[in-house]
């Protein structure tokens, strides 16, 4: 089966600083691909390029086997790519429904269709087995970190998306809430979506990932099958930029 998303030789510089140097990456539908790498390795930059927030300077971007041009967030959304950002992109002053539909409000007679939006927001949360959200009309500011993350993820799956990219979704969460979010991530892949998960926490990575892609100083070290590798090998790849001998690369 051809991968859902493929990148070949992607490059990106900010001024004189080259952040991505010929990165290859592939994400399969129905699998969780983890993207790991040290601080500043370029993970978020890679994601923002895929999402159309930054433009890649060079390289091929294929989606469902076809070369695509993603120059703004709308292009990515049109392909079915949704991103949950590291710095949560939610508006604190808006409620859950308005955040989930932000920028893509449903309309009836040119007016915002609050009824349908609220219904669909609830259905989506229910579909993800999020059962006890107090009210979808509470402002996002009053939610806990885990709840906010859940809203952000629910927003990403609202649109029949095919690929969900999560940039450190558990970074600010406690043990229990991390657990919730990881289960949610797994469930996305089990529903047949492609998932790209960025994380610094190898426990999380080994818990949910099928594939592990290691980025080192803007270059892709390799993409490893999670089942056939160990923590030590991955740690070594992250810190030295080389997949140790004998590892299933």
């Amino acid at each position: 089966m051809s991968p859902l998303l493929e990148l070949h030789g992607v490059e990106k510089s900010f001024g004189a600083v080259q952040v991505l140097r010929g990165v290859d990456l592939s994400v399969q539908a129905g699998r969780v691909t983890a993207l790991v790498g040290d601080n500043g390795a370029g993970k978020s930059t890679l994601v923002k390029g895929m999402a159309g927030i930054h433009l890649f300077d060079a390289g091929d971007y294929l989606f469902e086997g076809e070369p695509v041009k993603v120059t703004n967030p709308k292009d990515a959304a049109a392909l079915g790519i949704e991103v949950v950002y590291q710095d949560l992109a939610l508006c604190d002053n808006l409620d859950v429904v308005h955040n989930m539909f932000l920028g893509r409000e449903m309309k009836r007679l040119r007016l915002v269709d609050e009824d349908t939006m609220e219904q669909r927001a609830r259905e989506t949360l229910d579909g993800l087995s999020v059962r006890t959200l107090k009210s979808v009309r509470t402002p996002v500011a009053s939610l806990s970190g885990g709840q906010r993350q859940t809203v952000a993820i629910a927003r990403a799956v609202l649109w029949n998306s095919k690929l969900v990219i999560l940039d450190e979704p558990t970074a600010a969460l406690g043990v229990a809430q991390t657990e919730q979010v990881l289960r949610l991530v797994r469930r996305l892949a089990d529903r047949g979506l492609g998932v790209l998960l960025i994380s610094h926490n190898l426990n999380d990575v080994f818990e949910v990932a099928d594939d592990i892609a290691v980025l080192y100083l803007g270059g892709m070290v390799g993409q490893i099958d999670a089942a056939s590798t160990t923590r030590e090998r991955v740690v070594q790849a992250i810190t030295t930029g080389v997949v140790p001998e004998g590892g299933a690369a």
Partner: protein
Amino acid sequence: MSIDTDDPTVAAAPDPEPDNSLGGIFRAYLAKLRGGEVGSLPAVLGLIALVVVFSSLRPEQFTNSFNFANLIGQSAGVTVLAMGLVFVLLLGEIDLSAGFAGGTCAGVLGVFLTRQEWPLIPALLAALLTGALIGLLIGLLVARLGIPSFVVTLAAFLGLQGVLLTMIGEGGTIPIRNDFINGLNNANLPVWLGWALGLLCIVGYAASTYITDARRRAKNLTVQPLLLWALKTGLLTVVVVAVVGYLSVERSRNPALTSLKGVPVSLVVIVGLLILLTFTLTRTAWGRHVYAVGGNAEAARRAGINVFRVRLSCFILCSTMAAVAGIMIASRTNSVNPNTGGETTLLYAVGAAVIGGTSLFGGKGRVIDAVIGGTVVAVIDNGMGLLDQPQGTVWMVTGLVLLVAASVDALSRRRASATGHV
């Protein structure tokens, strides 16, 4: 919220059945207040206090219906200006030039209407278009070039003051002789029409909210308790009946000579704009985007919202509303002079929006805040005048009230972030 209910550590306590009794509604409201969501409550309480104070100190002059109608006319310009400013404040920006933008637009109206003897409609359109163009220019400088709105509009404030002075001439005045324009802020509706429009407001509000609520209840969506709907409708009815009733009383000192009664046209203009702008802000996608950009511009951008366009449109709307405000001020005095829209106009308007509950930090505010705050400012100005207080005292008191309002805003924000509300 929990994702799996079998996870005891994260399962939130099940939501208690909403309490739809009077006590329940009251407790829910108190909880909201305690969470820092005070809305317009401080302004409304302040307004009541001011009215009580002035009524007891000057029972004859303050509460008579002549003064009441007068107060509406005096405040119309500031209130309309404040309504436009709400959109800019919602973005977390400011428009210091709105007052003189209004004056300049009124000047354009005067030049075309009186000096060039144009017909009304083209002259009016020219004035409104001037407002839109001023907003476009400011918006481009702020949203495209990224110059802080404080600086851009400070420059525009100075510049437009000069434009207005040049247009009219030092010490000059342009009289306005058009009946329609002068009627906007001087004429009154026939008594029956005032009642008819008042009734329309009540029935329109009651019916539309009832139908919406019933539909949402049928679909099992979140909805306010029926009792709360009844309370709100009742309150609106009381206010409308009281205002229209009071304004329908004969208020001429010499009724035999000229009869003076009925709802002022300026009130119709204010309420009409209030309904139109509130509808736009709450029911259209554009309105949601204004709140989103004010709440978190980066989130709005990532959600695919054209932040630049939203910003630009708010500045255009604000300056266009300023044009309407300028026309209301010119109408009041039947003339335009180099000080139209100057002096305290802009500062009162910003004060009005903030006193009403619109946050200077962006993302929080409603159009009705401008009307409530505008009324507070007008009552202070009018009441202090009746107490024969010198202008200096009036300004000091107004300044104090604004400071209190801004403190309420800042404190409620701290409270809100402490309790997790907005």
